[in-house]
């Protein structure tokens, strides 16, 4: 069976972003509570929960705080930044197949929390796959993605100007979004070029923010969505992807490391959808690091292989000028980094018509999770 169009996002909620006093559990519960109010659904009606394996707030804590009733479905998706759209997918599948009736999916995160920075917690004796990289000073996620980026630039002629296009478009969108951490901070191309190196060829502004915050969505069947408060946003298609011989993050060991999990995810997504890349009005592409945008543009079929950098030229991914506005809330690089869950909520707002960089009459809204790790993607559409 297909779950196409069977479920809808009926509620969204989020905290403020930035450096916050409240703990992770408080933030998560606030976001969930706001999402339920946004939907007009009472806590006792929630019977499904979906989250990330890196989520610090467990189902039992969330349910006891928000006052949920009998939970009959709960599930987690792994691989950090690759998870968010898969979490929506698990919730939508559970609702569509009757494992639960109303599901909540959420992500709460604090940058200072131990769970947010696993690379700083490691013992100096490495027993897992990182024994092949960490003893050589490849310590952080940025070092791992920078390695793929250098190779990508070498093979296809992508440049720092292309990466700057990505950072500048996100910043311009954040400057229109009062909830974005970088709302009041414009950025110039010179500022990008002059910023300090983090791991060459990636500089400071090729990296996402470090943020505290939480977001949540409520998913229900379309019939239940008939009397919720807002126009339901249809979960049209969803996919997860893990290709053969892929090694998450340090994916240097297969025959084509630059063709990451986005490719298989995209193939299944477009197979399941009634639409294709040309029908997408607006995209939220996971951006822990700027090079993931050109790689995702290629993987999801918006351009040919190697053309992802050039695709960003001339403001093509920027609201108001571009054929495909990308990360219209500011994304992970300029709104907040909440493991891509803010991209989900922005993808929903674009269909509702309530983004601060609203694409006029958006009908098809793509959200993707992280390229370079086992990943996922979701297509939201208007109810037709």
């Amino acid at each position: 069976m297909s779950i196409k169009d069977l479920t809808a996002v009926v509620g969204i909620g989020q905290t403020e972003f930035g450096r916050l006093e409240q703990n992770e559990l408080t933030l998560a519960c606030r976001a969930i509570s706001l999402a339920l109010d946004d939907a007009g659904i009472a806590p006792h009606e929630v019977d499904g929960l979906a989250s990330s394996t890196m989520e610090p707030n467990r189902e039992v804590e969330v349910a006891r705080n928000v006052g949920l009733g009998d939970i009959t479905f709960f599930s987690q998706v792994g691989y950090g930044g690759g998870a968010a759209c898969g979490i929506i997918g698990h919730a939508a599948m559970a609702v569509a197949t009757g494992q639960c009736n109303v599901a909540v999916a959420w992500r709460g995160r604090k940058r200072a929390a131990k769970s947010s920075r696993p690379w700083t917690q490691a013992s100096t004796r490495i027993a897992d796959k990182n024994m092949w990289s960490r003893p050589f000073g490849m310590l952080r996620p940025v070092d791992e993605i920078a390695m793929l980026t250098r190779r990508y630039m070498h093979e296809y002629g992508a440049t720092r100007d292309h990466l700057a296009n990505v950072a500048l478009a996100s910043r311009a969108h954040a400057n229109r979004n009062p909830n974005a951490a970088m709302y009041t901070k414009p950025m110039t191309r010179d500022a990008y070029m002059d910023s300090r190196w983090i791991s060459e060829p990636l500089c400071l502004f090729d990296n996402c923010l470090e943020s505290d915050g939480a977001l949540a969505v409520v998913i229900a069947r379309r019939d239940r969505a008939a009397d919720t408060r807002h126009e339901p946003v249809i979960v049209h298609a969803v996919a997860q992807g893990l290709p053969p011989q892929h090694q998450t993050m340090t994916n240097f060991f297969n025959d084509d490391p630059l063709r990451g999990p986005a490719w298989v995810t995209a193939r299944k997504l477009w197979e399941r959808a009634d639409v294709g890349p040309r029908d997408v009005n607006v995209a939220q592409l996971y951006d822990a690091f700027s090079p993931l945008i050109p790689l995702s543009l290629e993987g999801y079929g918006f351009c040919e292989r190697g053309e992802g950098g050039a695709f960003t030229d001339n403001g093509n991914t920027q609201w108001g000028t571009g054929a495909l506005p990308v990360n219209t809330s500011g994304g992970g690089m300029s709104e907040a980094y909440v493991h891509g869950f803010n991209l989900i909520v922005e993808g929903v707002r674009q269909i509702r018509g309530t983004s601060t960089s609203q694409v006029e009459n958006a009908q098809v809204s793509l959200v993707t999770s992280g390229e370079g790790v086992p990943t996922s993607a979701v297509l939201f559409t208007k109810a037709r």
Partner: protein
Amino acid sequence: MLETNDDRLFVPDLDDDDSRPFWEGCALGELRVQACASCSQWRMPPRPMCPRCRSLDVTWVVSSGRGTVWSFVVPHAPLLPGYTELAPYNVIVVELNENSLIRFVGNLVLGPNAPINSIDPATIAIGEAVAVVFQRVNGIALPFWIRAPS
């Protein structure tokens, strides 16, 4: 063999059965590659089962230790203690001459006894030829790479 002792530096855990023969090879000056004893396919990183034929039988072959730079990065501080002091240094991925699917993460060094920040990163190029050398970190021999005539 250059010896560095600094307990803040990362080293492999030699208790891992799948990879131990690799690190034992390094101590003997050999760059070993795990191969399937049934279908002969080489694989990296080491693992229990051959993804081609599902055999659990493993052999180790001694490679030439020659390759080319597939890509490289230059991490800058702040990093973790022990690495911040060395930054900026290079990290490279080497593609082995005998089999382009066998790759190693490592560091390009000026000579067998030189540290990981001994090369000007601006001089490193994708495709340049390298050869393995070994240095001991906290008593464990690890592969490093020097420039080699191509």
